[in-house]
């Protein structure tokens, strides 16, 4: 029962976060400069998410395979390769390095 309440609380809370952004934008007129900053904000959030995911700090030793895969993805994306190529190259790089026991 406690668990069900927890699930509902997490679902409702998360939905509220998702709903709040568009709702706020409708009610408040932001100046152009702020709107531009908000757009950059999404890119900053995603970039930070990439960095934190690619460089996990929870384990004691540094794992090389994952950041290497993400780095390959960065290079290919910068050279305007299709996203499918980027995805496959990242996964393959990381998988191969683990197979070779580099990490």
């Amino acid at each position: 029962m406690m668990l069900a309440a927890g699930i509902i609380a997490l679902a409702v809370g998360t939905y509220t976060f998702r709903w709040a952004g568009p709702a706020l934008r409708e009610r408040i007129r932001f100046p152009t400069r702020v709107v531009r900053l908000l757009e950059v904000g999404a890119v900053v959030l995603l970039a930070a998410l990439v960095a934190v995911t690619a460089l996990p700090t929870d384990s004691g030793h540094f794992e090389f395979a994952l950041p290497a895969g993400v780095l390959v993805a960065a290079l290919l994306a910068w050279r305007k390769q299709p996203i499918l190529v980027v995805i496959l190259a990242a996964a393959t790089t990381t998988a191969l390095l683990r197979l070779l026991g580099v990490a």
Partner: protein
Amino acid sequence: MRSIWRTLGRDTAAGIAAVCLAVGVIGVSYGATAVTTGLPPWLPIVLGVVVLAGGAEFLFIGIVAAGGSPIAAVLAGLVVNARHLPYGLSVPDVVGSGWRRLLGVHLMNDESVAMALAQPDIERKRAAYWACGFGVLLAWPGGAAVGVLIGTFVPDTAAFGLDAVFPAVLLALIVPALREKATLRAALVGAAVAVASAPFLPAGMPVLVALSGLLVAGRGSDQRMGDAAGPESSELVSKSDRTTCESGAE
């Protein structure tokens, strides 16, 4: 639905399909992990549908399975999901209006927001957001259900390098935006702040703290690449190993 695909073009559509496939496979691993830790089989599937945010669900299930209190699990999950609020502030136009928005905001996740950001015009932003959002809505709980069914066999997503897919996708999608100097500067500072603060903050917080990178973007373009963030974020970077381009010029 067909018109959505036509709007998107082949490359983006293939990209969305690939992202959903990866999400699905990670979902299988998630569902299998959840039941092998002794949690009821419906839990990961229900969470997948109503929360629809992988990181928070993993955390929630991890805390509950370890015998932690559901209250702690909820709070941890909410901290991780707080980033959806700034997401909604950045892409308010893609979620639709009226009754459609009730579903539209629920489809907001890292992948759908990044997909929308990567499109050149509002028409395609909207199409990419909804296509990717729906795809994830099907793939994530669907994957979890398959994982629950195969239960004892936990696919090792790490062996196939699948954990690299998520950051790679997000990166590929924000690269066009990063070609702009001010955005790149803000993103680099934000990422550095996030990585440096990660060991000291609970999950989900470092990404929010990264928004301090906006202080750099908000300032004029009289500075060049490699400048440090403002004093506010310098304080956050307590003892960062200065691997990134921070020079403390202020």
